[in-house]
């Protein structure tokens, strides 16, 4: 009796697993959980001490290169539904006038006009999305990262309406079906929650840099602490003319651009 029940159960769950993560078990040969290590810091962090930021040097960014976005989407199990309506994206490229619609558009040099710019979550210091969230599922972390608590998200999509940068995606359907090359080091999301760039908080905790900055063959992305005047990013901000997206909205983005 018990055995029969168990067999039935195994059959059912195996089916479920096959449906849910079938792609994964088939495609990844060495499939084991990542060994946990103690994080880069020990105690509860002090809020506001660090503010992570990124500087994107568009002069170095190669037009047909999408390496950063590809790596980002790979290491975070971002699904690809291959249709625009259900699209989920953390990092992508769009033409200059789409990414900076309120910046000067008249008589811009052809070089800039034709350039595709990298877009991702700005991790705003004054983030409208965290303000709109009715459950604090999206919240401002101690280190300036606008984080998602997928355990809490109710899928009302208020944050998507509130974000002036289009940085948020909703899981209109089960994302596991559309992860073509899954990794085991990061969880997936589930149907009905909103997701977005997490500034690689999963890698920061291990003392690593964000995946996109490592992936860029041209070293166009600089990541660092905006609160530390000695950091690389602050040095670059000091010595270069930089831009933020839609600064007139007062959101204070933590992502800067050199055009």
């Amino acid at each position, binding site marked *: 009796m018990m055995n029969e029940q168990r067999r039935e159960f195994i059959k059912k769950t195996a089916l479920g697993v096959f449906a849910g993560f079938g792609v994964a078990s088939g495609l990844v040969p060495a499939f084991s959980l990542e060994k946990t290590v103690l994080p880069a810091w020990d105690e509860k962090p002090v809020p506001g001490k660090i503010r992570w930021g990124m500087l994107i040097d568009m002069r170095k960014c190669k037009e047909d290169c999408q390496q950063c976005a590809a790596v980002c989407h790979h290491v975070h199990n971002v699904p690809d539904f291959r249709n*625009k309506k259900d699209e989920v994206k953390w990092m992508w490229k769009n033409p200059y006038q789409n990414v900076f619609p309120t910046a000067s558009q008249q008589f811009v040099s052809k070089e800039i006009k034709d350039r595709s710019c990298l877009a991702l979550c700005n991790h705003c210091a004054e983030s*409208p999305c965290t303000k709109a969230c009715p459950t604090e*599922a999206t919240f401002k972390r101690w280190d300036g990262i606008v984080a998602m608590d997928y355990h809490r998200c109710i*899928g009302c999509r208020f944050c998507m*309406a*509130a974000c002036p940068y*289009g940085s948020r995606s909703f899981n209109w*359907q089960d994302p596991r079906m559309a992860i073509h090359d899954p990794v085991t080091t990061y969880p997936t999301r589930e149907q009905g*929650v909103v997701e977005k760039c997490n500034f690689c908080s999963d890698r920061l905790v291990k003392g690593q840099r964000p995946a996109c900055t490592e992936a860029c063959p041209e070293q166009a992305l600089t990541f660092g602490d905006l609160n530390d005047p000695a950091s690389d990013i602050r040095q670059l901000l000091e010595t270069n003319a930089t831009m933020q997206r839609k600064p007139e909205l007062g959101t204070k983005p933590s992502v800067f651009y050199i055009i």
Partner: protein
Amino acid sequence: MIEKALKGNRSYWIWIAFLIAVIGIGLSAYNQQRWFGLTVTGMGRDISWGLYIAQFTFLVGVAASAVMVVLPYYLHHQKEFAKTVIIGEFMAVSATLMSMLFILADMGRPDRLLNIMLYPSPHSMVFWDLMVLSGYLVMNLVSSWAMLGAERKGAQPPAWVKPLVYLSIPWAFSVHTVTAFLYAGMPGRHLWLTAVLAPRFLASAFAAGTALLILVSLILKRTTGFDTGKEARAKLTVLAAYAGLANIFFLGTEFFTAFYSNVPAYKESLQYLFFGLDGNCQFVPLMWFSLISGVASIGVLLVPKLRNSTKWLVGACSALVLSIWIDKGVGLILGGFVPSPLQEIVEYTPTTTEICVTLGIWSIGILLLTLLLKVFVAVKMANEQ
């Protein structure tokens, strides 16, 4: 008192059966949506709210408009509204219920609904909206039910009803103001980012809700013989007309600010809705239909000769409701998403599943209203005999 809803003629039961059938269709469509996700709707990454939130917005307005009879009756002792006031409150009850159901239908994880209460976030307008909506629902249901119960017994209503009704008057304004604040506080959505949104919401709500109330009272008269009175309807007609006028005025001020200032971000959504943007003009015919039918119906309602004829009155009220439904639902919600933050223009067409869920929720609300009004009419008729 509720047992009075269980006694009715043939057409009453056919109507109930019809509503239940539509609810069934809606439930099965919703089941499909739960299973496959919101991908079964027409919504997508760029237009992330659609028909559901549009209905929600419209219905909160209908709910708030009960104040148009409650206020004159209780504060100004306009006795003509004696027979209409409970109808208005019952309409508010079912409209509030529907609007809450539309929020539920729009959620990706409705099983986590209680998270809004478990992690209350006063910085979020949704939290406040849920508070005022549920408060408004309870307030209206309790006070109107108590009033009707007292009337049935021929007794004075309990003493606590009056204060509750007085509280519900400012509450009605707050319900729709907070709903406007859901949208009006978002940077980067310029169609919504306007201080005139809350006043415009109230104006359109008072126009559409009052027109709907006139229609309901006419339907009651036709189906049950219960008449709320010509004077009450005449007064409501004038209220609806002026509220509609105010709505058109507010829309005009939006146009002026956007097009005279010539700031692209402010212009683009209005341009998309009414004239088309970069060759995309999905909603242009619908918006002009809304504008023209709105203006025309207000014109009819303002001419005494026309509004005194039932035929013209029904036509004008229906056109006004439809006009505001398009303006507030389709135009305001969908227009807010176009162009997207990345300057893209995306089209939106609701799917069959989405429409079925929407009709299902409407049927739930109409069923509730039917039952409540059935009780109401039965009590009134018994008293009159």
